[in-house]
């Protein structure tokens, strides 16, 4: 198996299996039928998953050397530019491969049940398998161009899938919005790549990373009179790309909108894989980011802002999928924070655990939605526990992982991030620390608000729906269970090896951290195994904040369901009820429950009005408006046309002859 050619064909097979599945489902769907289509896609992805496990074993367990090679040369340009398709398979890639193919496989299986009655069944499998292909290309890239190709391809497919069910009226605007928000990010990303090509003269990761230190200290002037560090400009431009794809403030607006797509898509693309591409990319670029503290600070602050403020928004949502969507935004913020403090390993680790539990939550939500006959409003749910036991228990595990309950996967990854922020001395780390801590509280609050509203309490659905409530078929519950297991144990099993046992060794050369940024190495000194980490975690503020959030949610949505509405009016009641149990003072209660809700609503409205309304819709509207006005210049009259020509001639003459 150490034969490089052999490995190379395995890598190729990983990428091509989903592509072939996709092509069969898409182009020959009419011939192979519905079951043929789902078998083709599922088998393709399953092959990729199994081979990814092989790669994982080779690279990580057996410590085989990483692979970096060209598969085929796309183009050799006149000026010595090589554009290749190549793979770089190292520890980082191996982890991503397993995560992507595993979640993808689970979603594919689940889709068989979820999309059962949909007329676009074959098409859907074609897209999801194609998406998997593009994501694998992105993850395995060994050069920037291929990265960009994967980047654009996943974006394009997600754009197609968001619109899978779009109603006709809103279709144009909402899709244009997602498109524009992503394009802003892509523009930054493309510029970043352009700067890299200009200064390094190469598109290959290895060449660029090797000479990264050489351009430290070089400057460029974006406009005359200003000198900016090349590496900072590059990193920030690349990060703008990551902000678009990973939905960081202020380019996050498209992600809640994307919930219009079918739920399996939300799980696959908008929770587990595509949105984490930005995180992966920054981690992959760690050899560059490490040299720019400014860029790291920007990353850190953007991440912290997203982590806290987006979580707040989750408090006021009533659509079950939107709660999970805002939670995704917040968790992406956490990963970004980890990148900002150079704890790349922790960020990737959280990416991995998050992929499991967030896919689980989305698929659980999907299971609920199907049972509720496509009702998504949590105010019309409640008491589903007794109808859907498997969904209930798996979602509970997912929720516990999300809030970072000790022992769950989320606990290890999130706690590692929070401790890393605490230990970091990057500018802005103290603010970020506060933000991520508060974020823990908010996370617990909205997660269990959702959980209680959906599964506990009185059933608020109509009689017809109630009569037809039942657990989902096995193709849907099986992936839930399969995802619940890693959500529970991934932290226990992997936190040690990935983060602390041998800091800096696990990821080999895939991730570069400068010694004075290396917070994880610092933390590793205190590491004495997962159990002691859990015990230690019990004394962390993060744990207590999470518990507080959980408890507040319990009180507000189980015990006193009138509280959320009356929170502001009856602050005294809130105060007395909560102060007895937790001893938090009145101000905090006001702030967190009442104020938090208010602030959340306020931000949400501002968000809609300002960012959606002005920035995104504004651009879309402006283009459409200008376009519709300018077309009237095209009057259809010959003499107008001739006159325009003569005016053009006059202007050119004036410009060049007279001046």
């Amino acid at each position, binding site marked *: 198996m150490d034969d490089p050619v052999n490995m190379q064909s395995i890598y190729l097979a990983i990428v091509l299996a989903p592509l072939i599945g996709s092509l069969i489902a898409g182009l020959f769907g009419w011939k192979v039928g519905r079951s043929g289509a789902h078998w083709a896609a599922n088998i393709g992805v399953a092959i990729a998953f199994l081979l990814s496990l092989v790669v994982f074993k080779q690279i990580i367990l057996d410590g085989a050397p990483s692979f970096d090679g060209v598969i085929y040369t796309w183009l050799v340009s006149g000026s010595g530019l090589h554009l290749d398709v190549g793979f770089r398979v190292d520890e980082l890639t191996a982890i991503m491969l397993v995560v992507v193919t595993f979640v993808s496989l689970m979603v594919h299986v689940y889709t068989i049940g979820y999309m059962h009655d949909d007329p676009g069944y074959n098409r859907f499998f074609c897209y999801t398998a194609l998406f998997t292909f593009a994501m694998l290309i992105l993850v395995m890239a060994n050069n920037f161009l291929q990265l960009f190709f994967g980047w654009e391809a996943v974006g394009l497919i997600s754009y197609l899938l968001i619109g899978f069910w779009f109603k006709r009226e809103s279709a144009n605007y909402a899709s244009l919005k997602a498109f524009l928000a992503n394009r802003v990010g892509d523009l930054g990303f493309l510029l970043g790549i352009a700067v890299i090509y200009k200064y390094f003269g190469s598109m290959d990761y290895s060449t660029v990373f090797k000479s990264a230190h050489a351009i430290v200290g070089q400057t460029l002037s974006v406009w005359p009179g200003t000198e900016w560090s090349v590496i900072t400009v590059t990193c920030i431009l690349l990060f703008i790309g990551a902000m678009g794809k990973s939905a960081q403030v202020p380019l996050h607006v498209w992600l809640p909108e994307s919930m219009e797509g079918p739920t399996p898509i939300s799980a696959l693309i908008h929770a587990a894989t595509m949105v984490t591409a930005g995180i992966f990319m920054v981690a992959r670029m760690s050899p560059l980011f490490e040299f720019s503290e400014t860029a790291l600070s920007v990353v850190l602050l953007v991440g912290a802002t997203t982590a806290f403020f987006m979580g707040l928004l989750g408090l006021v949502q009533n659509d079950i999928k939107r709660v999970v969507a805002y939670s995704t935004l917040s968790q992406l913020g956490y990963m970004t924070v980890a990148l900002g403090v150079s704890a790349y390993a922790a960020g990737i680790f959280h990416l991995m655990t998050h992929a499991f539990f967030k896919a689980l939550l989305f698929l659980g939500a999907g299971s609920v939605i199907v049972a509720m006959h496509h009702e998504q409003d949590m105010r019309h749910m409640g008491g589903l526990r007794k109808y859907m036991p498997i969904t209930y228990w798996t979602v509970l595990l997912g929720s516990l992982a999300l809030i970072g309950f000790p022992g769950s996967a989320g606990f290890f990854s999130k706690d590692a991030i929070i401790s890393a922020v605490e230990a970091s001395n990057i500018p802005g780390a103290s603010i970020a620390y506060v933000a991520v801590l508060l974020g823990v509280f908010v996370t617990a609050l909205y997660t269990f608000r959702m959980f209680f509203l959906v599964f506990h309490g009185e059933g608020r659905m109509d009689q017809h729906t109630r009569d037809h409530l039942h657990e989902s078929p096995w193709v849907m519950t099986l992936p839930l269970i399969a995802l619940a297991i890693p959500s529970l144990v991934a932290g226990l099993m992997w936190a040690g090896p990935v983060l602390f046992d041998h800091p800096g060794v696990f990821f080999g050369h895939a991730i570069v951290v400068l010694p004075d940024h290396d917070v994880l190495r610092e933390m590793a000194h205190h590491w004495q195994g997962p159990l002691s980490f859990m015990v230690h975690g019990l004394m962390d503020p993060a744990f207590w904040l999470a518990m507080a959030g959980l408890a507040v949610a319990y009180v507000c949505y189980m015990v006193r369901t009138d509280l959320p509405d009356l929170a502001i009016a009856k602050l005294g009641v809130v105060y007395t009820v909560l102060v007895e149990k937790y001893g938090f003072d009145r101000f905090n209660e006001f702030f967190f429950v009442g104020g938090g809700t208010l602030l959340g609503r306020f931000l949400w409205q501002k968000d809609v009005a300002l960012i959606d309304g002005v920035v995104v819709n504004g651009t879309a509207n402006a283009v459409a408006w200008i376009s519709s006005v300018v077309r009237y210049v095209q009057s259809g009259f010959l003499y107008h046309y001739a006159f325009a020509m*003569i005016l053009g001639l*006059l202007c050119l*003459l004036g410009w060049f*002859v*007279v001046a």
Partner: protein
Amino acid sequence: MESFLFYLFSTILLVAATAVITVRHTVRAALSLVLVFFTSAALWVLLEAEFLAVTLVVVYVGAVMVLFLFVVMMIDTNTTVLREGFTKYLPLGVLVAVTMAAEMFLALGSPGFGGMAAPAPHPASYNNVAELGSILYTQYVYPFELASVILLVAIIAAIALTFRRRPGTKYQDPARQVSVRRADCVRLVQMPAARKTPAP
């Protein structure tokens, strides 16, 4: 003398050209155009291009313009409609024209197109037609052929766009007329010499 003639004809040419687009009456406009061609021909004579000048008069004045006048007189063009909005657009038009003129003056007004000397006049024995003929079929054979192809295309295009066989149109086919046989024209009918039933 030569420059006096040049300026004389040029002035007439410009005045006539202005008249073509300003006079109200279509026939007068066409006649002004005839004057334009005449004065251009005169200018060509000054340039020793006698053959071309003659051709211009023969072809354009003699053939094209006559045909044109013929068409103008056949079609009753309503000039008032065409002139609608003339005053409305006049200021804009004048502005554009003045700007254009100013720009042209700036560019071309000062003397010298690279200071090429005028070619020496040819002796009286110089045969314009012969020179033209020999150069047209040797040096310029390619452009000449191309021009002829363009004319061919113009013919094809004109026929393709205007020639159509309407249903019900009556026309003669000389070939069929010539090859007509007796049997086509005369039908012999056998008729009885007398009625079978006598008149009452």
